[in-house]
């Protein structure tokens, strides 16, 4: 009884619980009763109990075929072996390994780790700049998806092509084809090493250094967009890119003068073939810089246009005539283009155009005497006479101050070494000014070294004895001409003029008539052994040593006659003789008598003389 009661109670409780449970469960759709969870919003339409088998296969869980029945875009890729799902590590997996469901409406059924996703599995390796893109959606976006259906799904990762132009805009507007990798790599759009040699215009010289944009310039298209043209850029003529700075004044093609190495003169000079002109360059003209003939200061439009239209160019169009017209205008009669210094006929050579016009004796010298080298045009030193001439003075003539060898032109001219132009006036400026008869002496007397047979001008001495022989040596006391100084006695006016000598310094000062006599009257020359020697020493001061005793020994005492008893240097007469001191005093009439009244001439021993010591002291001696 009790158990039946419990059973009834249990059944009733069960019923109540079932009703409550039904109410609880009934708040949710029937599909939810057996579903492990809501399908994500993409599968929402399948969230119905009648559609379980759309995905599930009874007894076999979820099969990939069921998924691919709907997801035909994946099936399409799998069939063609393309895309991530076709990779061997992916295609054999159940779809639900990555795309399970029943995790709620907002479940991300497609979610992968963008940072660590191995893009290589998709069949499109991310390399270069692609590998550095952080945001996958930069490429995987609806704008880059060509398939209209796929592009509607903002969450899809499918539908992206592998061509560059699938994502990148064709900046070249189709002018360079569609194979971008011909020029670009995946590192950067900027091309660092584009091989321009592949084009019709290989870059050479300066072209290789020019920034691409200098030639490939931006163009403004009709739609207002900018376009950088790389293909079909005109390039057959230089002026396609370069301005013609000559403005058509030069008829030659640019390449006639210029190369891709630059516009430099040096290149133009090497490049241009002057033979193409009316004036082919020959000889030295070939080595001349263009600017020598063509005025470089001209504006570019006038450059090289100086001779345009001319057929014959005379030399004087460029060259000055150093002959000042003396040889006419036909330079080529003498000159050749190889050099001005190479003459067709040397006889016509005008040395005056050189830096060393020939004058005087130089004009008659044979060319080869100076031009000893092979070519007359070889440089020849000519600033100093000694460049050609030997210095006969052996460098002795030097400037007193600088001690430099004196220029020959101070004394010599091209008219000859002799006569020298060194005159008296110049000599007066030397250490030995010429005086007296020296002025009249020929240079050779002093300056010609007989021993060496050459002219000497330096260190020839300036004292008399340096030139003159000291004839008094040994005959004249040195105290009268110390150190052989002749000028103590002599004058340069004349040897014989010895008025300068002061005889009073001698032991025999000249007085009276002595002052009037010639030196030689007393200092007589002794001619011995062919030489004339004038005695100045050891001359007796006795009157008789010079004077003759006209009294013939009348007054001689002890073998000596003392003239000064009667005479003075003032003259023989009047005598200082005082007749009163004699033995016969003159008194009376005697005093008035002429001497000759008593002292009569006498002849004795062939000599006629007045006899003063006649011994007549007696009247009778005279008077009769």
């Amino acid at each position, binding site marked *: 009884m009790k158990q039946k009661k419990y059973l009834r109670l249990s059944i009733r409780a069960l019923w109540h619980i079932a009703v409550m449970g039904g109410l609880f469960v009934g708040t949710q759709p029937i599909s939810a009763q057996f579903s492990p969870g809501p399908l994500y919003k993409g599968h929402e339409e399948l969230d119905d109990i009648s559609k379980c088998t759309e995905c599930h*296969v009874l007894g076999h869980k979820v099969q990939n075929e069921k998924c691919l029945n709907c997801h035909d875009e994946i099936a399409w890729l799998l069939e063609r072996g393309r895309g991530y799902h076709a990779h061997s590590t992916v295609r054999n997996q159940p779809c639900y390994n990555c795309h399970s469901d029943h995790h709620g409406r907002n479940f991300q059924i497609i979610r992968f780790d963008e940072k660590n996703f191995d893009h290589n599995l998709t069949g499109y390796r991310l390399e270069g700049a692609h590998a550095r893109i952080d945001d996958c959606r930069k490429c995987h976006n609806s704008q880059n998806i060509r398939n209209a259906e796929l592009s509607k799904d903002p969450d899809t990762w499918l539908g992206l092509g592998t061509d560059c132009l699938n994502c990148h805009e064709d900046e070249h507007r189709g002018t360079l084809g569609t194979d971008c990798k011909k020029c670009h790599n995946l590192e950067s759009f900027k091309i660092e090493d584009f091989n321009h040699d592949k084009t019709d215009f290989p870059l050479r010289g300066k072209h290789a250094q020019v920034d691409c944009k200098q030639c490939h310039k931006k163009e403004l298209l009709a739609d207002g967009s900018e376009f950088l043209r790389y293909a079909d850029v005109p390039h057959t003529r230089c002026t396609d890119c370069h301005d013609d700075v000559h403005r058509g004044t030069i008829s030659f093609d640019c390449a006639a003068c210029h190369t891709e190495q630059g516009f430099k003169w040096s290149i133009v000079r090497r490049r241009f073939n002057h033979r193409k002109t009316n004036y082919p360059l020959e000889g030295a003209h070939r080595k001349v810089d263009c600017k020598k003939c063509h005025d470089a200061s001209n504006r570019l439009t006038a450059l090289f246009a100086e001779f345009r239209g001319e057929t014959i160019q005379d030399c004087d169009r460029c060259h000055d005539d150093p002959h000042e017209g003396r040889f006419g205008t036909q330079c080529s009669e003498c000159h050749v283009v190889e050099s001005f210094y190479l003459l067709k006929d040397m006889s016509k050579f005008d040395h005056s155009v050189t830096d060393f016009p020939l004058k005087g004796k130089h004009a008659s010298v044979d060319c080869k005497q100076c031009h000893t080298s092979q070519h007359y045009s070889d440089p020849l030193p000519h600033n100093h006479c000694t460049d050609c001439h030997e210095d006969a003075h052996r460098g002795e003539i030097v400037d007193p101050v600088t001690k430099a060898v004196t220029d020959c032109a101070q004394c010599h001219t091209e008219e000859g070494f002799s006569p020298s132009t060194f005159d008296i006036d110049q000599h007066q400026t030397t250490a030995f000014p010429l005086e007296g008869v020296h002025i009249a002496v020929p240079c050779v007397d002093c300056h010609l070294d007989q021993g060496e047979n050459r002219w000497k001008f330096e260190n020839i001495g300036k004292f008399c004895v340096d030139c003159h022989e000291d004839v008094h040596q040994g005959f004249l006391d040195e105290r009268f001409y110390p150190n052989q100084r002749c000028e103590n006695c002599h004058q340069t006016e004349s040897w014989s003029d010895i008025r300068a000598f002061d005889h009073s310094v001698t032991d025999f000062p000249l007085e009276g008539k002595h002052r009037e006599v010639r030196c030689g009257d007393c200092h007589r020359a002794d001619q011995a052994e062919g030489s004339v020697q004038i005695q100045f020493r050891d001359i007796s001061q006795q009157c008789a040593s010079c004077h003759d005793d006209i009294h013939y020994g009348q007054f001689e005492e002890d073998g000596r006659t003392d003239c000064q008893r009667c005479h003075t240097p003032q003259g023989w007469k009047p005598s200082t003789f005082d007749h009163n001191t004699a033995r016969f005093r003159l008194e009376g009439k005697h005093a008035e008598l002429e001497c000759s009244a008593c002292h009569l001439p006498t002849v004795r021993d062939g000599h006629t003389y007045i006899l003063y010591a006649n011994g007549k002291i007696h009247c009778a001696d005279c008077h009769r």
Partner: protein
Amino acid sequence: MYITILVVIEIAVFIWLVRLGHSYYVLPLEERPFHELHRQLKPSGDIGHGLGIVGTLMILIGVFGYMTRKRWRALQRWGRLKYWLEFHIFLCTLGPMLVLFHTAFKFGGIVSISFWSMVTVVLSGVFGRYVYVRIPQTVEGRALDWSEIEEIKRTVEQRLKGANELSDEQKQTIWQIWNAPTSLWKKKRQIKRIARKSVDRGSPLYDWLIEQTELMHKLSSDKERINLYKRLFKYWHVFHLPFAIIMLLIMLIHVGVSLALGFYWIFD
């Protein structure tokens, strides 16, 4: 010891499951598929599905084993009903725990009725156990009459009075403690304190006093309270069993659908 082992097993399994799947289970549902253990711990995963199957088997064994033992007289000699109950409690708490982890804490659909029914059954089981232990029973598990209780009390009182090692005052105090409406733990502490004064620890009297403390505690409730527990326990059956039946019925549907869709666990 027997209970301890079972409890330890349950706690160990719980800790193992929490440690294994904590990071997975705390994720929002939308994030779980991207967890590295999703394929193992999802309800249909190798571990998750296994937990469901093993847990279900534990529940089935626990329920039907105990029911059979309890209702089929032929098995009445097969072990004491007390142990069967404890084993029933063990399997029917461990099993639902495994099922709980099998659900991965997703509670939806018709199978959730089964789940919540299971939860209800478990919780009611706990409540039932609470009531059950408060009803004085024989060793066989039969509830004692009030007169039988009175008799037991008298026997115990006689035995206490015969204990010469204790003073009268102590005996009186012990008797008062036994009949006081305090907790068992407090009673045991008081009894031990008194007993140690007169009796050696480990002596038969000491052990007897402790055992009788537990018995007297069970018998200490008054007659009305015991009758209340008895009534509650009768009606509890009405509550416990229907939920178990609902749980089992829907579980069958859930298993059937799973098998029909090809989820054979490791037997694919």
